[in-house]
């Protein structure tokens, strides 16, 4: 996770390409439309299950399958590992707060960026809100040092 990773000339192009496919998928699945997410949460159209499960199946096969062929990533030398976080009360507390926001608005971070891409300029209200929220918690955690402010939350 050091800045050295970015020295490989293909690092940023590959990240961009991955983002491109990711964003196209969110557009194609209509998940970039908050209404579609709200229709899912109110059980009017459960299609979104296929987006999340479809995506998780592909990443799951990739994460576990790649280790059969090699141990580290070609562009960074990073050893292939799973995305594991510590399970603590923050996961539940934060998940709950995120859930209220998601249920109220129908947006989430990735889908919001994609929503901007499909021309939905009104999503800027949501993205601005996300930065305000991220700043509030960052300010709170940076100033309440010593408690759980040092909890690493990368990715």
């Amino acid at each position, binding site marked *: 996770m050091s800045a050295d990773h970015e020295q490989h000339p293909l690092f940023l192009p590959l990240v961009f390409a*991955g983002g491109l496919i990711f964003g196209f998928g969110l557009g194609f699945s209509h998940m970039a439309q*908050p209404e579609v997410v709200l229709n899912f949460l109110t059980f009017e159209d459960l299609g979104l299950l296929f987006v999340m499960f479809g*995506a998780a199946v592909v990443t799951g096969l990739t994460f576990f399958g790649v280790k059969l062929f090699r141990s580290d990533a070609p562009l960074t030398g990073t050893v292939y590992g799973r995305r594991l976080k510590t399970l603590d009360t923050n996961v539940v507390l934060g998940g709950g707060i*995120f859930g209220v926001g*998601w249920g109220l608005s129908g947006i*989430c971070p990735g889908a919001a960026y994609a929503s901007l891409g499909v021309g*939905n300029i009104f999503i800027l209200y949501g993205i601005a809100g996300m930065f305000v929220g991220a700043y509030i918690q960052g300010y709170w955690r940076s100033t309440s040092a010593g408690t759980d402010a040092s909890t690493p939350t990368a990715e």
Partner: protein
Amino acid sequence: MSATLTIGLLAELFPNGISHYALGGLLVGLGVAVIYLGTGIAAGASTFLESTLSYGSSLSQFQQYRASRDWRVVFTLGIVAGAAVYALTFQSGLVSSGLQSGATTGELRDVGGITIWLTDVQPWRLFLGGILIGIGTRVGKGCTSGHGVCGVGSASSASFVGVATFLLIAIGTAQLVQAVGVSP
């Protein structure tokens, strides 16, 4: 008889079909997989919020993401660009697909030959929801992509708990908001 029942149930649960959802989901996963295969990074979308704030704020909570902030900006620009490619092709009718059912939510508007899509969801819902999302995803260590796609794909117990929590709370919230008559 049972086949008719099954089809009827499917039509009720999935009024817009499932193919575009499934294909879109596979592409979302593929985007994550491409980055992972090349770099070993399981990329989530919400850390971008904090890592980008490190450009303008010296708070320690944001500065810890200095090393990753550049590629996170590139990842996010890629997401926006990828969705824009969708808008230029399928959304604008340049390319058509039987997999795409015509969604009728929001508003499609023609701007210089390109069809853009605009939400009907009210600005206050987006803004207030955004604030809660900004707080919640960061405290909770992930969002729908970090926990929901990368974490579940990693069979991470923290992510299963995270997804179950935000999914149930979001369902409850959306139902409540609908019940008190807020629309759209």
